């Protein structure tokens, strides 16, 4: 008797010992496999939807982490996630091209919104697995299901928190940025193992059933997956009421609709108006200051008395303190730049700003471009995570970086940061500090 045969016998023996023949317990409701009757379900449908979902979540995840990098979390108190991981962001976010952050962040929102209906369809296609019995066939199966809970939980959390955050509804009593950031870490870890385990099944399914072939079935002659070989197939299928291509077409339409709403708030001119339901899809008017406001002066708690004649910009640098009135700033060389405000919420607006170069202010404070400088910019705004921001050397000395005093030929409106605001190319919107009161340079 060979060693292999002996092992086989031993396994068979211990298998008998492990699972004495129990009388079958009748399962109830959704725990019965017969409960799930949709004839559309099967590995092909799930594979197809998953293949459409994957590129979107990959784009959303990559651009999400890029957005984190764009805040230069290693500087000052820029890191609002409270992470140890700031050291991972070893590079300074570039200032060129000026539209870089607008592009990465609009892709984040576009991919995320387009993925919503596809994610819902994906979850619908696998819902019978939630109720499968036994709950854990083996240690491997149990661990895999635990991992799936983290995947589904983090995915839904990311989508829901992102969607309601861009609509200014913050009901949960936690801070959005760190919650979204750490949920993304969970999501990426859980997605990676899900792909390792499931991509072979997807490949096998597509080899056997074709990538598109089941789309050819109409309602009346629909092939139904075989429950013997397909764990997602219905054992007691109902008659179909929609074809697979009909269902997938509806999902695709919904996805395209959400994409259109989101894309509009980054486009220019009249095409922007297609963003009918987007939180930033409204026009402010035609005046020089009529463009999107991230936070009004009233909400930021800006006291108008402190922005009047008595306002001074305080510059602190290498052993030198300078205080400048708005008239003195206007007397310095003025530069005009067309630059975007690109918000983390996925909208962009381009305006013609004019004001003093940040490099000139650094020079006044006694810091020259050779040094690896930083500047802490503080606002009159008293509270809030973005009442200050720290800018890196490349951002200070980019010739397009301004302390803007005017926009589109008019003085800044109070809501846009009067008396002065920062505008730096490719910088996330909220780091373009408004109502600046102090700039502290360090080399």
């Amino acid at each position, binding site marked *: 008797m060979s060693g292999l045969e002996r092992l086989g016998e031993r396994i068979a023996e211990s298998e008998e010992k492990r699972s004495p023949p129990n009388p079958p317990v009748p399962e109830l409701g959704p725990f019965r496999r017969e409960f799930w009757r949709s004839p559309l379900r099967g590995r092909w449908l799930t594979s197809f939807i998953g293949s459409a979902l994957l590129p979107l979540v990959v784009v959303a995840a990559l651009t999400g982490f890029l957005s984190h990098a764009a805040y230069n979390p290693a500087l000052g108190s820029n890191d609002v996630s409270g992470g140890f991981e700031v050291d991972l962001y070893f590079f300074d976010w570039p200032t060129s091209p000026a539209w870089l952050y607008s592009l990465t962040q609009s892709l984040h929102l576009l991919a995320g919104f387009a993925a919503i209906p596809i994610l819902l369809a994906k979850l619908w296609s696998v819902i019978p697995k939630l109720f499968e019995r036994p709950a854990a066939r083996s240690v491997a199966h149990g661990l895999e299901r635990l991992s799936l809970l983290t995947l589904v*939980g983090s995915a839904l959390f990311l989508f829901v928190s992102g969607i309601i955050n861009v609509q200014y509804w913050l009901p949960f009593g936690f801070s959005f940025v760190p919650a979204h950031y750490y949920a993304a870490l969970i999501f990426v870890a859980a997605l990676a193992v899900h792909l390792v*385990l499931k991509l072979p099944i997807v490949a096998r399914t597509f080899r056997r059933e074709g990538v598109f072939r089941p*789309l050819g079935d109409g309602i009346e002659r629909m092939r139904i997956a075989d429950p013997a070989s397909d764990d997602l197939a219905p054992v007691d299928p109902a008659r179909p009421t929609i074809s697979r291509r009909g269902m997938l077409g509806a999902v695709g339409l919904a996805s395209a609709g959400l994409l259109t709403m989101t894309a509009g708030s980054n486009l220019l001119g009249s095409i922007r108006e297609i963003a009918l339901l987007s939180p930033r899809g409204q026009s402010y008017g035609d005046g020089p200051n009529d463009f999107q*406001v991230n936070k*009004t002066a009233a909400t930021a708690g800006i006291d108008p008395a402190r922005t009047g004649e008595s306002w001074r910009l305080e510059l602190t640098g290498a052993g030198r303190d300078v205080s400048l009135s708005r008239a003195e700033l206007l007397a310095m060389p003025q530069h005009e730049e*067309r630059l975007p405000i690109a918000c983390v919420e996925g909208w962009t607006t381009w305006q013609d700003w004019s004001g003093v170069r940040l490099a000139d202010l650094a020079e006044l404070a006694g810091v020259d471009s050779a040094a690896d400088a930083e500047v802490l910019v503080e606002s009159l705004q008293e509270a809030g995570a973005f009442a200050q921001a720290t800018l890196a050397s490349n951002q200070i000395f980019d010739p397009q970086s301004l302390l803007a005093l005017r926009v589109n030929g008019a003085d800044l409106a109070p809501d846009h940061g009067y008396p002065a605001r920062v505008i730096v190319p490719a910088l996330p919107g909220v780091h373009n500090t408004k109502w600046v009161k102090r700039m502290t340079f360090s080399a």
Partner: protein
Amino acid sequence: MIGKRFRYEYGAQPLHLIAVATSLLLCAYAIFRVGGIPGGGKVLIWLVAAALLHDLVALPLYSGLFALTHGAADRTIPDRASMLMALNHVRVPAAISLLLLVVYAPLILRIDPDRYEATTGISLDPYLGRWLLISAALFLISGIAYAIRLRRGAPAVAADPPPVADGPGEHRTGGALAAAGWFTVALAGLATAWVVATVIVGLVTNGL
């Protein structure tokens, strides 16, 4: 041999354990870090609650809605093929409209108008009307498509078809369908590239 024994005890090959353990440990790290942020406990609750609310509340709710529309159509239109055509021309626009309502609920239903208006300086008033108009447009387009299909001829009344055997020779249209499918993917890819290119060109020309 050890491999076999392991697969028996664990239920999968060792690579499975390595992959799942790595993933779960990374998750555990992130969960530990979430615990340290303000309101972290609530984040953890919502991570699990999101999955439960979706799987045990939202999904049964919309499945039930679909079943209701199906039941209503079944009772009122005797011919099954006609019934299904009418049903889907109603429930597809209804589903998209409902999804838009759920996604943009904070704006459309004016859940927290004070915060929105104070933050952005504009009003929440337009959104409900816009959603109604979009929904009307969806139903209108679906209705026009339905009318066109009706004019082309009533759908054939099919008897309950026998389940189709899934064997070779059944997929005579397979090659053409795959070609059409890949063509669609290519088109979607081109369209995506076009959107990205338009955004980039728009951004660049605005920057110059």
